[in-house]
């Protein structure tokens, strides 16, 4: 049943259904602009005052085949009347530019009976019989699954305003969505005009026409209308205003705001967009992006720069981290400050370059030869991606060593609003001290209790010393006595304990004690807490805790875990499931955070993790937690 434009019924004031939140997905073939459409829609909703959280749907190839399940590209936007912290469960509306890419979303479990599916109906008129056949079968299938299917005359509509249909569909769809969600027409047009101003007057005008066309078509032909009210309370006390960006942009801005002057990198998905942003923005703050010849050169350059006084940052993903481990070890041994950002992706090996995974924790902790204690942070929100960069540089310089910041592909591309950071000059690196060093000052004057020491920078007269990766003493002389090696290791290790003494115990989400405690880290904060909230609403005694410091670990964990009957980590990485063949208590491989916490606290912590290549929906987590709870109960009774 194809909607025709012939029956242009007059614009009716349809009644809008007020909802607390909605999840919208837009999917298309690669290159059709569904991602842009999603980004703009998210931006518009944020300006409207909604809380948003987005997830990019990214194909792994540059040019995947058209009309294929694997080639789906697009965006999911969850908008709400309250701050939104995760991607949610099933979509309420999906707009698909062809029916095959919709299947990829079905396979991912993103739809439910009742999801409204808008699909481009132009395929029905395709000259290719196979395509028409596929289309018919697919739509029948969709209806059988219980989706509400509405074909759209996208191509026909777009051809009225643009010659190349591929250029217009996403803006037309944007108009459609804005009408469905009742976003004010003129204000939106202004935003769009500003966004496309750079591309020339013709493009801007064409986009405005396409947008209006989609908007008006929806007003005439689409029954559904939803209203998602703006957040009543300003999000997190936003007296200073709100910003919207994705995690990589937040990291880049954080790097600039920390006064870092050099970002040294090698291109790797999904980290590269940080450097893209910096490559043009850094000029404003007097910094540079150095693209090195490989990952190892990138960190070497950053270390050289830090050694000469200006702490630098290097950015990579899992495979790059593997290459950098020798240099990380050198930075620890020579106590050279450095910030290393790892935007984790699906592994192992080349894995899933565009998909989220939290698989590099162990590598971050242990991959370098020997004992390499270092600080590891994991931001959990987009806002923390910004703020942790400032903390990272400061800690790197005070504790004189590398600080790793673990992000992931979900944070990298997901947009979320947060209070606009109010810049404080104290964030910037202090000016270099080039004054001569005190006579008798040692290159590694370890405080015997803390292991901390001031460092000499080239240019300081009297401070000349040779940094070396070889075992060395306080004079940075190569150490040949055995006691020196022991002492030096002790000092470097001590620094972590010192930092831990200054950390606060983690804040518990929920009650301070109960039946089940969920522990997470990184981008799963929102989805875990939402799952926990659902269980708590059902009266279950579940709480959660989300770690930001992974090395050193936040204090008080053993005592905290003791207050719950069961502790489970929920992670996006691989672990064996209990009950699988051959998986016993002795052979079961636990998820990385669970391994770490088990060793640290001696508590029999369980884990549940998956590597779906997409964020864990709260409903799935909730379901698993219920299973864990009931299993625990059964155990108790037994």
């Amino acid at each position, binding site marked *: 049943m194809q909607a025709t434009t012939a029956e242009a019924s007059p614009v009716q004031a349809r009644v809008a259904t007020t909802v607390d939140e909605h999840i919208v997905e837009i999917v298309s073939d690669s290159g059709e602009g569904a991602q842009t459409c999603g980004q703009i829609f998210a931006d518009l909703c944020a300006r409207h005052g909604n809380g948003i959280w987005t997830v990019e749907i990214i194909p792994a190839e540059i040019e995947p085949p058209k009309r294929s399940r694997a080639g789906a590209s697009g965006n999911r936007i969850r908008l709400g009347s309250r701050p939104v912290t995760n991607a949610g469960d099933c979509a309420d509306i999906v707009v698909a530019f062809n029916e095959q890419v919709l299947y990829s979303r079905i396979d991912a479990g993103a739809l439910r009976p009742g999801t409204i599916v808008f699909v481009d109906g132009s395929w029905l008129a395709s000259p290719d019989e196979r395509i028409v056949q596929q289309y018919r079968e697919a739509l029948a299938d969709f209806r059988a699954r219980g989706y509400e299917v509405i074909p759209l005359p996208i191509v026909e509509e777009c051809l009225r305003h643009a010659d190349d249909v591929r250029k217009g569909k996403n803006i037309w769809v944007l108009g459609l969505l804005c009408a469905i969600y009742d976003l004010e027409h003129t204000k939106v047009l202004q935003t769009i005009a500003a966004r496309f101003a750079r591309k020339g007057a013709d493009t801007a005008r064409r986009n405005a026409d396409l947008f209006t066309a989609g908007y008006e078509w929806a007003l005439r032909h689409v029954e559904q209308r939803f209203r998602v009210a703006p957040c009543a309370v300003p999000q997190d006390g936003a007296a200073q205003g709100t910003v919207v960006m994705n995690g990589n942009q937040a990291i880049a801005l954080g790097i600039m705001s*920390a006064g870092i002057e050099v970002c040294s990198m090698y291109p790797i998905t999904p980290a590269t967009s940080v450097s893209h942003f910096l490559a043009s923005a850094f000029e404003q703050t007097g910094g540079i992006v150095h693209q090195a010849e490989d990952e190892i050169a990138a960190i070497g350059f950053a270390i050289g720069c830090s050694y000469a006084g200006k702490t630098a940052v290097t950015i990579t993903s899992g495979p790059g981290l593997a290459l950098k481990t020798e240099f990380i070890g050198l930075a620890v041994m020579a106590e050279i400050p450095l910030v290393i950002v790892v935007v984790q992706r699906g592994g192992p090996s080349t894995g899933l370059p565009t998909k989220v995974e939290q698989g590099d924790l162990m590598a971050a902790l242990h991959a370098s030869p020997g004992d390499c204690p270092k600080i590891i*942070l994991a931001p959990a929100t987009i*806002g*923390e991606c910004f*703020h*942790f*960069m*400032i*903390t990272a540089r*400061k*800690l790197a310089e*005070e504790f004189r060593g590398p600080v790793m910041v673990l992000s992931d592909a979900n944070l990298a591309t997901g947009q979320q609003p947060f209070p606009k*950071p109010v810049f*404080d000059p*104290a*964030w910037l690196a*202090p*000016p*270099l*001290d*080039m*004054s*001569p*060093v*005190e006579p*008798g*000052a*040692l290159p590694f*004057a*370890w*405080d015997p*209790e*803390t292991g*901390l*020491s*001031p460092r000499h920078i080239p240019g300081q*007269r009297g401070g000349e010393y040779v940094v070396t990766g070889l075992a060395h003493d306080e004079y940075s002389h190569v150490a040949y006595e055995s006691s020196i090696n022991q002492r030096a290791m002790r000092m470097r290790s001590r620094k972590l304990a*010192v*930092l831990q*003494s*200054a*950390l*606060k115990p983690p804040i518990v989400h929920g009650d301070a004690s109960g039946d089940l405690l969920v522990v997470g880290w990184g981008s799963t904060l929102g989805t875990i807490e939402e799952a926990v909230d659902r269980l708590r609403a059902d009266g279950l005694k579940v709480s959660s805790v989300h770690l*930001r*410091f992974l090395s050193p670990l*936040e204090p008080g964990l053993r005592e905290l875990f003791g207050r719950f009957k069961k502790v489970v980590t929920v992670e996006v990485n691989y672990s064996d499931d209990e009950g699988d063949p051959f998986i016993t208590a002795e052979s079961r491989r636990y998820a990385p955070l669970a391994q770490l916490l088990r060793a640290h606290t001696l508590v029999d912590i369980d884990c549940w993790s998956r590597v779906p290549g997409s964020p864990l929906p709260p409903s799935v987590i909730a379901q698993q937690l219920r299973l864990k709870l009931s299993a625990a109960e059964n155990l108790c009774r037994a």
Partner: protein
Amino acid sequence: MSATLIAPETVSREQLRTFHLSGHGLEGMLPASGLKPSLTDDTLRGLPQLELVYPVWITPGKPPAPNVPGNEGFPAPFSAASLPLIHGAFLAAGRASARAAFLQSLRQAIASLADLIAVDDAKRRPASLDKVAASLGEAQRFLSVGRLMSVFGRHGNQPAGMDAQRRLRCEAALTALEEALYTHQSAPSFWLFSSGESPVDLSAAGGRVCQSTDPCSDALAFVNQQLFDFAIVLRALRLAKLEAVNAYDSATHDEALARFDWQTAEPGEIAALPTVVVLESAERLEAASLTSFSRLLRSGRPVQLLIPSSGLCAGDLTGSVADFGALALAHRGAFVLQTSMANWDHLAAGFTEMALTLHPAVAVVSVPAPGEAPETAWLQACLLSLSPAFPLFRYHPDLEGGWQERFRLLESLPENDSVTPVDALLLSSRYRAHFRMIPPDAWDKEQLELREFLRRYQSAPPLVIPFVNALDDSGALRRLAVTRELVHLCFDRQRAAEMLRVLAAKSPAPTAQAAVVPIEANDSGIREAAAKDAYRRVLALLADPQSLV
């Protein structure tokens, strides 16, 4: 003489003679206005056109451009009032980069001193809890900042801060530099001292006016104070540069800085100061402050002096006219430019060079006479610079390349002196009393055209009436008798021009040229040649005693 009745159309020789010598009589023969000098076709073709040059467009930050309107700025018409605007615009454009560079060096010196003091502060006073908390960013909520601070402050050797003397030095220098930055950012690009009746508003060209009765003296006093104050700022700059690299050594540098004055500064630094300009007309200078004029030019200070001259002084023409260009030349150490608003290329080149010099600089500029129509004033100015009345030249005291480079005289027309000052004065109403029309029937052999008259006058003043040809508004040729005073004026200007030509080495000195003997390794050959030459000269001398003169 007035008693004698004369028919208005005829004049007698005696009447003409009286007029020529005394300037009186024949009032009926006063020329009408609208007379134009009779010029050769070559001369006419060579005259530049007013519309092609004026109004000149003055854009802030750029040198003025003739008749090319820009997006911002304003036009400067062909009038005396435009002169300080045009000069000021060249000045500002020429020194803009020096000024910008100086401000930048101030900013950087301030930044590096501020950094030094911040680093010193960090060493002396342990950071407060708030400061440490702020430096951690918002993630501080995961940390106990107090506990962190207690471990930070426990390093082994706590570095000591700067010694007290150094700290005071740096702080004093920082204050001086901050004040200097504030002052210089808002300072005008030039100060104009003038006793002129109508104060010109120069803010559009970036300048500020200071009224004064003796502008030369006041300007000198002002610039002395300016340089004294500036030396303090420059000392602070040098101190900052040394302190920034921890290279300040009291034993050496205290003394070095104490003796530092503006003369050891970089030229770029002095050029960054707002320039002190004096605007005084030739008439007022002559009447009032010649002493302070001389003192200003001998001072060696970086001042500029604009002397607009509308032609020739209207006073007593018996003697010579005060020639400020030549007077300035005699001061040797000053940059001297004699130019005309009617010769834009020469003026622009001259002002561009003048903007970059730090010597005392004088520009004597031919400006249109007030009260004349623009075309008349334009023609008059053109003719003045073509004639010996107002030769255009430029003298730069220390340009490399020898005298020929330092002193450049603009040669207008070949030396047949086809234009005399009188041709220019003819156009001006002020000098009308010096002319009488000779009716055609009174033209006779006792009248001689002025150029010829001037040529013959050298050997013996002929007893004839000098006249100039002119064209009236119908194009008819008219003959105008001129006074003795105008003749003296012409001679004076010829002498002045001759002097300048000699200076420019355009014509050889009247003494015989020495025989130029090629330098050879052949000593005896030289002696022989010299002997032969001497013998020839003695013979010549004996043959014609007149050559001894």
